[in-house]
Every structure is written in structure tokens, then in C-alpha cells.
């Protein structure tokens, strides 16, 4: 598979991204989801890669030199939350309310059934 431009940019801008010869590698699906969200937001002009690299770099720097490598995408996600809030794409309060809603939905959903938000908030089927 050939990386498209956004992904190439991602790799150039953040050289420490876990990767092999063909591209990024992920430990768990949410890592790939966080990566894919970021690539798409950038492609749609929500932020530039230098803004992204700065946000991610800040999170990683704050974690200090002894932070384990497997936390990479935890920092990635923290940076993405901050950047989307700063750019007024997803305000922090809205994000926290949604997270709470998903948490309650997950706890209320019998196992084996898809977790879905209540009809009143679920507008993307």
C-alpha cells in the first residue's frame, strides 16, 4: 500500500511514530483510530502538521524521558483532544459530556449487543 500525502506528512512531522518500513504500526485498534482521525482532520484543514507536531511533542515532553514507549498513543490522544478543543472543533465540555454518555451506554448495554447512544444523541447512523 502506498501512503497518501497526509500519512506521509504525519510520519515526517513526527519522526518518533512507531513504524516499520511500510508505515505506522499499532498495538491496539484505538491507536489506529486515533491515528486515522488525526490524518483525516489534517486532510480537511482542521490544523497544520506543524501545529500537530507541536501539540504531540508537548505531551511527550511533559511525560518526561522515562515514559514507556507504549504510552505513545496515549499522548497522541491527549494532544488530539487539546488541539480539537483549542481550535473549537470539539469543545472540552462537549467531549466530556459525550464520554460520559458512552460510558453510561456501555455499562447499560447487555454484552454482545452493539453499544449505542440513546436515540436523542445518535444522529449518525
Amino acid at each position: 500500500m502506498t501512503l497518501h500525502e497526509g500519512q506521509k506528512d504525519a510520519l515526517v512531522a513526527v519522526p518518533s511514530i512507531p513504524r516499520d518500513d511500510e508505515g505506522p504500526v499499532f498495538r491496539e485498534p484505538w491507536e489506529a483510530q486515533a491515528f486515522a482521525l488525526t490524518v483525516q482532520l489534517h486532510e480537511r484543514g482542521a490544523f497544520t502538521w506543524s501545529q500537530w507536531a507541536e501539540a504531540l511533542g508537548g505531551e511527550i515532553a511533559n511525560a518526561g524521558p522515562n515514559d514507556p514507549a507504549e504510552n505513545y498513543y496515549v499522548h497522541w490522544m491527549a494532544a488530539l483532544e487539546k488541539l480539537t478543543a483549542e481550535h473549537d472543533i470539539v469543545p472540552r465540555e462537549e467531549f466530556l459530556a459525550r464520554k460520559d454518555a458512552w460510558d453510561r451506554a456501555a455499562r447499560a448495554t447487555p454484552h454482545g449487543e452493539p453499544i449505542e447512544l440513546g436515540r436523542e444523541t445518535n444522529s449518525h447512523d
Partner: protein
Amino acid sequence: MAETDHHHDHGEGSELPDIALRVKSLESLLIEKGYVDPEALDLLIETYEHKVGPRNGAAVVARAWTDPGFKKHLMEDAGAAIASLGFVGRQGEHMVALENTPETHNMVVCTLCSCYPWPVLGLPPVWYKSAPYRSRAVGDPRGVLEEFGTQIPEGSAVRVWDSTAEIRYLVIPMRPEGTDGWSAEQLAELVTRNSMIGTGVALTPEQLEASQQA
């Protein structure tokens, strides 16, 4: 007749890990606001399905085929046996190995994207997370298997296992004929991801050769 056991020992709701909730929340908001396209997102993720790779699981299966001591350990305590090969999950989930035999074919379903043994199977395929797959797999497992091009002999039972947030299953497919004397490394090439979910069986040596020439 085929027997379908659908295990339902879990009435409780699910607790998703905090980080998974955060990703899901941001993702759903960004989709609703039109910043990301869910299909493009799936496509991007699908591209990387093989990157976490089912290779770890294939190594586990091949080892079980060639090392009776490991196989015994795997069937008794899959988590510990898999960890002994260095494949460790982050959430401490309980792994159970299901051995396919001429009498019984095992197949695993779940719609929660948290219910998949990442450390051994990598990212789940998009169809695995779809509601139609799960409901049809439970109601008509042979029909689903046929769509995957998998024929299970009439005399064999098909058992469907619903994985939970606490228990993840790894299907150990039957070792193909004509592989006597193969090394574990060679055998691992025959073990596909679908054979470890139970929607397929392991490749035959001929199928492997054909796929390598393609």
C-alpha cells in the same frame, strides 16, 4: 444435524477502558460534525489491519501443532501459554483456546470492538464488528461460513462462541494434511486470521503455494 451453542453467561453491561471511551467519544463527535467521514476512516484503519498482524496468533497455533507440551499448556491456560511466547495484552483479558476437531468446528463472534484478542490477532476486520455478522453467525453459522467459502462437513458440529470483555477466544484450526515434518515457521504461514476466528480453516500447502505465486 449441526449443533449451535451460543454461550450467554454475561448479562452485565460492559466497562470500556477509559482510552477507548475517549477515542470513541471524539470519533463520534467528529463524524457528527462532518469533520471525518466514517467510510474513509474505516478504509484507513482497514489498511492497517495486518500491521498489528495475526502473525502472533499464527505462531501460537503453529507451536501448538508441533509441541504437545505447549498445546497442553495452551488448552489449560491459554493466557499463560501465549504470554510465554511474549505476546501479552494490556488489559489482562482472559484467553481461552478452542480446538477444532473433525467433530467440532468453533467460530467466534462479538460486536463490541473491545472483545477481540488484539495481542494475537491484531486489529479486527471491519466485518467482524458489524451487527449483521454477529446476528447471522449465531442464527445461521453454516450460511455465514459458506459465504466465507468455508465448508464444514455435515457430520461436524458448529459451535458459536460469543466473546466477552473478560474472555477472548482463539480458535486453533486443524493442522492441514500433507504437512508432516514442516517446521513451526513453515506451518505458521498456513494459519490465516480467519482460521483463528473460525470463519475459515487453515490453508493447505497447495493453497499457500498458489497464494505465494499470485
